[in-house]
């Protein structure tokens, strides 16, 4: 942590950490503690007075079926996003690590969507699936499916899941590919000499050996689906139709900025903070136990 050889204490180290600490205090710790404080308050209907109510906001949340439904929806959404993008990335990485000629080309062509902002990913997909003009609804019509994500809840959910998973494939692919390339060749060759074909080698050797990466990516993808997909939801569905795509992070925004329910929104923020802390702890525990081959 500290260098064995180091400089003596003086005023300098305080000056060095000052910018980071000031910004952290003003824009992170103070607002977060405000959110916590506000989550214990209820404002009256006219905004004239506030009352300290301890955990009443949380009790309201725990019995609010809109909130519980949003929780459930977020779980479904994030699991499907993670499964879809990780599955797709695993297949592509499994094939890409076999390639010698053109390996660089494939990697480049598969990682660039990382740089596309979530809201832009949403815009691209909402254009492709525009009910009157889009390419996909036009072809789906031939299959007898009428596509309109402005009216059909499950279709809206499917669209945001597709857009969110599309953007995340690049990230998962990169980490899977790196993990597969770090497996020693001798292990793979030994299996080949014993007569295991490519598919068998993949499932009995490569896949178990990269399981730490799978776990790491699972946590990262859950965090991504929980928090970073706000832009996609905002651009594609605005949480609708009805509330069928209102995930937790969208609900915090909507209740706070549109509904102006400060206490309720703050209580939701606190719940989200607890979730992030849990995910971060899981992620760091994993890093400490990283498996070496």
């Amino acid at each position: 942590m500290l260098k064995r050889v180091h400089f003596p204490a003086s005023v300098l180290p305080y000056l060095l950490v000052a910018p980071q600490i000031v910004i952290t205090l003003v824009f992170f710790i103070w607002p977060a503690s405000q959110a916590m404080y506000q989550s214990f308050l209820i404002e009256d209907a006219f905004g004239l007075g506030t009352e300290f109510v301890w955990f009443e906001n949380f009790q309201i949340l725990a019995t609010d079926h809109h909130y519980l439904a949003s929780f459930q929806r977020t779980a479904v959404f994030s699991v499907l996003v993670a499964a879809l993008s990780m599955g797709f990335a695993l297949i592509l990485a499994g094939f890409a690590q076999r390639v010698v000629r053109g390996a660089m080309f494939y990697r480049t062509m598969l990682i660039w969507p990382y740089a596309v902002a979530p809201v832009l990913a949403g815009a691209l997909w909402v254009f492709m699936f525009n009910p009157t003009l889009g390419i996909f609804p036009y072809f789906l019509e031939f299959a007898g499916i009428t596509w309109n994500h402005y009216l059909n809840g499950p279709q809206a959910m499917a669209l945001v899941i597709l857009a969110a998973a599309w953007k995340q494939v690049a990230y998962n692919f990169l980490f899977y590919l790196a993990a597969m390339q770090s497996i020693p060749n001798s292990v793979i060759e030994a299996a080949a000499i014993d007569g295991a074909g490519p598919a068998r080698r993949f499932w009995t050797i490569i896949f178990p050996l990269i399981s730490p990466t799978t776990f790491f990516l699972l946590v990262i993808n859950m965090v991504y689906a929980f928090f970073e997909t706000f832009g996609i939801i905002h651009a594609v569905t605005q949480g609708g139709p009805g509330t069928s795509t209102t995930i937790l992070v969208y609900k915090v925004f909507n209740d706070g900025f549109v509904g102006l329910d400060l206490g309720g929104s703050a209580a939701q923020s606190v719940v989200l903070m607890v979730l992030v802390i849990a995910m971060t702890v899981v992620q760091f525990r994993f890093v400490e136990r990283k498996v070496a081959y």
Partner: protein
Amino acid sequence: MVENRPLTAFLTHLVLILGVIAIALPVWITFVASTHDELRMNQAPLPLWPGDYFLVNMKQTLFGSGLSGTESAPVWLMLLNSLAMALMISTGKIAISLLSAFAIVYFKFPFRMGFFWMIFITLMLPVEVRILPTFEVVANLGMLNSYWGLSIPLIASATATFMFRQVFLTVPDELLESARIDGAGPLRFFFDILLPLSRTNIAALFVILFIFGWNQYLWPLLITTDTSMTTIVMSIKQMLEAAEQSPQWNIIMTTALLAMIPPVFVVIAMQKLFVQGLTETDK
């Protein structure tokens, strides 16, 4: 490749090419939309092959007055705003993280670990979970509608601090000993030895943070109300809303294309640094 099987090799390339096509399809359709005129973009089925209005659309998007019937800043100004925000966020994050990592690794002073944990906590407080109170702080400081408001609240960084801490810990102790024998003070050591040694790490981190900064959405959306401060990424949402009245998809999709070209270019042109930055900051 372990063995030579022509059929498997063929299958491998087939799957990869299909994967590349599936990933590129949304952007291809966007590109095609930016090469047709408004009339063509309102007839289903939409074209799948480029037309020849690309330059016309580019010119109208960049320097025209935006979508008809809406009031917004010209797109070239939005691109400049985005560039300024991305550069301020990335250089700001790198600068303050370098300094705090240097202090934590190379100095022994009271509350050192306290500061370390305080920085660590920022990892657990993404902007999405503290939207309202952070907005209030920025409003009270009078930083709404300014570049400072766009960038400063986002530049505290636990990941960057950890990464530089990791880098500094691998620097041999002998370097500091010999520097001190030669009479160098802490700042001299920092600028003449540590900074040059961590050059590639800084570059790799810069690539990641530039993309992070450019793609900010929720934060600029909250704190900019003045159209002259709009960033290109947030303008897309306003255009999609306007599209319900005037569906000028050729212009909207040209804007989307312009919004993603800079970060995508950075990833492709600096691929090696990008991969290094991504794997270093997240593990």
